[in-house]
Each structure stands twice: as C-alpha cells, then as structure tokens.
C-alpha cells in the first residue's frame, strides 16, 4: 500500500514516518509538512492512502480536513485518515458530513500503535471507514444529551454494540469486547440498523453510517 503522510511537526513526522517505513506492507512514497505539499504529492503519486494531521499551516485549524475532502473529491481512489490531538466532534462532523467512504479519523495517540494505524489506512484505501473509538464515544455522548429521538429507541445493549461496530470493529471483535456471542452481536446489529432506518443499505460502511444516521436524525452534522 502506497502512502503519503503530512504533519507539520518534525518529531511526529519523522517518528511516524520511521514507524511506517518499518512496516512490511507500507510504502511511504512521500512525507510533507503542509497542505499544499500534500495536495501536490497526492497528485504526483496517486497513493492508496493519505495520513494527515488536521492542524497545519497556515492557520493551524482545519487544513487537514479541507485537504481530505479535496483529495476524496479529486482522487476518489485515495483514502484519507486524519489525525487529531483531541476528540473534536465538530471536526469529525465536518469531515464525514458528505459521506464516510474512504475516510478515517484517529487520535494522534494511535500513531505509535502501528497495527491500528495500518489497519485504518487499509480500511480507507479500500473505500471503508475508520473512526477512533474515542471519537465515536464523543459523538454519541454529545448527541445523547441533546436527543429525544433515534438513539432513545435503542436498548442499552444495542447502544453498546453500536458504539463498537461504528468504530469499524467486526462482529467477532465486538463479541469478544462485550462478552457476547457473535450471533447475539449480529442480532443486535440487525436491530440497530432497523431502528435507524438502515435496513436496505448495502454500503459496506453501514456500520459507521449507523452513527451518522443517528446524528442526522437529531439534527447533527448539517445543522451546526
């Protein structure tokens, strides 16, 4: 998998670049320090995946989000994982409000856990999604305090399952985490999709869409 990585901080850039270079299945084709260089590198290399910091020059606000959306629009075969120091739900909304395919949002604390990072890059490169569990928790926690609709229709167990699967975990992994049988997880997932109106979705990202459908139902991403 060919990857371009962008981060303006030298320590993170060099450290993560070194970790990725040591990973057998990753070819780090270019490492850059700002969004303009990132877009140029993507245009040249057409990588399978991009890993990018969110806050970069010149404003250190949403440069990585903006670049991710441009890359997905102009180079749809390239998946993008953005990195954030904190759980910033507004940034997650901004990133995902037009669709979750090929997009991921991880906390920077994951960058030293190379397996998680590589899995996320693979997921987005294949058109899937990768959300940090803490980001999903943050999204759900914030919306559950505002909601009177969709999520309240879920049982406590269904909500737990939703939180797990929305982060990209498989049914088997969810079953292990929640000490349930895989069959029970399947049943809860089916109920969640049904209650959130995703029964007919064939999209491979339906699990993440379950979270976003909930957010939409409560006026989330598009009404900020």
């Amino acid at each position, binding site marked *: 998998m060919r990857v371009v990585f962008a981060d303006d*901080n*030298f*320590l*993170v*850039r*060099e*450290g*993560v*670049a*070194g*970790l990725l*270079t*040591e990973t057998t299945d990753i070819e780090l084709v270019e490492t850059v320090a700002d969004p303009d260089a990132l877009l140029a590198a993507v245009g040249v290399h057409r990588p399978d995946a991009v890993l990018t*910091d969110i806050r970069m020059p010149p404003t250190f606000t949403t440069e990585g989000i903006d670049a991710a959306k441009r890359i997905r629009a102009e180079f749809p075969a390239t998946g993008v994982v953005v990195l954030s*120091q*904190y759980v910033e739900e507004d940034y997650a909304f901004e990133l995902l409000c037009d669709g979750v395919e090929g997009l991921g949002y991880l906390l*920077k*604390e994951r*960058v*030293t856990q190379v397996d998680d990072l590589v899995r996320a890059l693979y997921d987005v490169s294949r058109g899937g999604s990768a959300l940090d569990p803490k980001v999903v928790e943050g999204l759900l926690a914030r919306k559950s305090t505002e909601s009177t609709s969709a999520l309240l229709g879920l049982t406590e167990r269904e909500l737990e399952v939703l939180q797990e699967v929305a982060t990209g975990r498989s049914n088997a992994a969810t079953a292990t985490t929640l000490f349930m049988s895989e069959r029970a997880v399947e049943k809860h997932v089916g109920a969640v999709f049904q209650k959130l109106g995703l029964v007919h979705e064939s999209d491979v990202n339906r699990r993440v869409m379950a979270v976003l459908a909930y957010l939409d139902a409560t006026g989330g991403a598009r009404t900020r």
Partner: protein
Amino acid sequence: MPDLRVLVVDDQEPFRRAMRAVVDETEGFVVVGSAGSGEESLAMATELLPDLVLMDVNLPGIDGIEATRRLRAGAQPPVVILLSTYDEDQFDLAGCGAASYIAKAVFGPDRLSEAWAGACP
C-alpha cells in the same frame, strides 16, 4: 558555557532518532545517550549524569512516570521532561518530579528551550 547534556528515552527507535534530531537543532543542548526503556534510562543516567532527560511516558516495563520518580529520587537528579502522543490529562503525573509535560505533537526546539528555562530559571 558547555552544552546541556541530554538523555532521550523512547521505546520506538524512529522517535528516539527524531528526538535526537530536535535536540541537535536546539542551541545549547547535546544528546549524550538514548535509552529504549525505563530501566535502561536509569542505568544510563547513573553512568552519564545528564542534565536533562527527555522521557516518553508509555514504556515497556516501568513506565516513564515511575522512571522519572526514581531518577528524581537520586542524589544528583537530572531535570526530566515527559513526552507523549497522549494528552497530559490521561496521566497522573502528580509527585513524579517531572519539570513539565510536552505533547509530542508540539515538541520542537522552541518548546524544549522554553521548558528548560521554566525548569531552571
């Protein structure tokens, strides 16, 4: 005035290498050693007597917080600055003796100089 002698501690070699490069770019500081674990940092600090230890928090074996506590309990303790990719509020740093905490995402020559100045005004 001689350069301040720095020991860098991180279990991931690419980050040790990058930390060394940051220190090399910082005027008045020189790396005298690098360690890949808390235990190794204790042994190297005894041998090298660094002025400053840049210590990753998450380490195999004893973590960076415990290693800091032990370093600071010595007779001639070095200044210790903790680093991590995690947020500071995820750790209990109280009483460990670290001079400061810097997120890796913002660590660079300026922050290193500022942190040293704050620790040794």
